[in-house]
């Protein structure tokens, strides 16, 4: 009986009502009824024998019904597979994270010299272990985000200030900016309106773009950030004086797991998922993202996000 409750069934898939298989089935049912009535009136004009007309309408109903059922059924199967895949990734990610946290915190405990004095060379080796477990953690986190973005997930949106998120992100990455001796310039328009998005996902967007501008910059390089209102949108731009993206690679940079050739030379660890995730998030919130880049000179990434709810 629970299958008959369309609203609860659709809630399970966490997608809008009009995309829900049960709702589509209902609509198709109405279309079938309408087609039958229409066929009856048209058929009555041209087919004189009521018996033939009745068989014709029954056949048409059966064909339409089977067609509608198979469409809805395959749609439902696809959704179930997508939901199962997301659940599977969440479970796997949790199982991977547990031993990784054990490893990380034990290394931290060692490095805090709580298990006795350790030599310089041992510290270096432990730091190497720590860096690699951090990379693994980064990959798992991104896998979870990708699975959520690709699956049907509910976004709990709220009014947020992009300026505040930006300042928090800069604060969080301050050490990284200083360590790379980068000069950061901000140009933020005053009294910017708030946007209606999920703050968790927007932090990921700004962190990814700023992280790329730091990671692929040159020593003593520059990062310029602009934030302003443009019509009904908020415009964000980040420019760096880094390695840039070779022209032949530019069309692939929003693809999953793609990493440009020139980046490998710099030996910076990365997952190749950041820009894919960033683009997905921006588009999920009704925005647009783009970039311009010149190899060895730097890159400019921008996005537009609508202010309205």
């Amino acid at each position: 009986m629970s299958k008959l409750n369309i609203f609860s069934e659709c809630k399970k898939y966490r997608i809008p009502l009009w995309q829900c298989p049960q709702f589509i089935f209902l609509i198709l049912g109405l279309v079938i009824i309408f087609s039958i009535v229409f066929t009856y009136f048209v058929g009555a004009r041209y087919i004189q024998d009521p018996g033939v007309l009745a068989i014709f309408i029954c056949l048409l109903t059966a064909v339409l019904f089977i067609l509608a059922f198979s469409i809805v059924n395959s749609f439902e199967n696809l959704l179930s597979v997508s939901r199962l895949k997301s659940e599977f990734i969440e479970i796997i990610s949790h199982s991977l994270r547990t031993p990784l946290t054990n490893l990380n915190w034990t290394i931290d405990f060692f490095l805090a010299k709580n298990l006795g004095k350790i030599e310089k060379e041992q510290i270096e080796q432990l730091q190497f272990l720590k860096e690699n477990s951090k990379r693994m953690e980064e990959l798992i986190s991104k896998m979870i985000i990708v699975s959520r973005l690709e699956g049907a997930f509910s976004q709990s949106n709220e009014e947020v200030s992009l300026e505040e998120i930006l300042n928090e992100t800069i604060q969080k990455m301050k050490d990284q900016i200083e360590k790379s001796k980068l000069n950061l310039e901000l140009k933020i328009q005053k009294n910017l309106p708030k946007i209606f998005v999920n703050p968790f996902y927007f932090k990921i967007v700004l962190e990814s773009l700023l992280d790329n501008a730091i990671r692929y910059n040159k020593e003593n390089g520059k990062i310029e950030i602009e934030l302003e209102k443009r019509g009904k949108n908020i415009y964000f731009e980040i420019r760096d004086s880094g390695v840039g993206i070779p022209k032949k690679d530019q069309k692939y940079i929003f693809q999953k797991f793609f990493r440009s050739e020139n980046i490998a030379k710099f030996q910076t660890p990365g997952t190749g998922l950041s820009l894919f995730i960033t683009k997905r998030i921006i588009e999920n919130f009704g925005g647009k993202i783009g970039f311009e880049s010149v190899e060895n000179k730097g890159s400019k990434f921008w996005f537009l996000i609508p202010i309205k709810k």
Partner: protein
Amino acid sequence: MKKILFIEDEMALQKSLGGLLSEKGYQVISAFDGESGLNLAKKENPDLILLDLILPKMSGFDVLEKLKEDPKTKEIPVIVLTNLEGIGDVEKAIALGAKSYLVKAEYSLEEVVEKIKKALE
């Protein structure tokens, strides 16, 4: 000396986080499953409870619910320390009365200790 009850079934985390908290001057009581964690909370009346969610014998959610039902333990602040990060899990834990929710993998050991220190202030 502030008393912390750490309900966590992973020995490595009991040793690292429990060890560092002891170094920092806290009294740490360890529980390795949900049931004994709940009993120790009633018996020891700690200043703070660190609670994992996936635990043997009784889940962290059940422990949290029972802690908040009991007048003896309902005022004790609980920090959920887990690697589950589904939106539903966070909402459920907060609705049940958790003071905060930390995803272990997102923090270093020192950062977690800082958060605990702040929660105890």
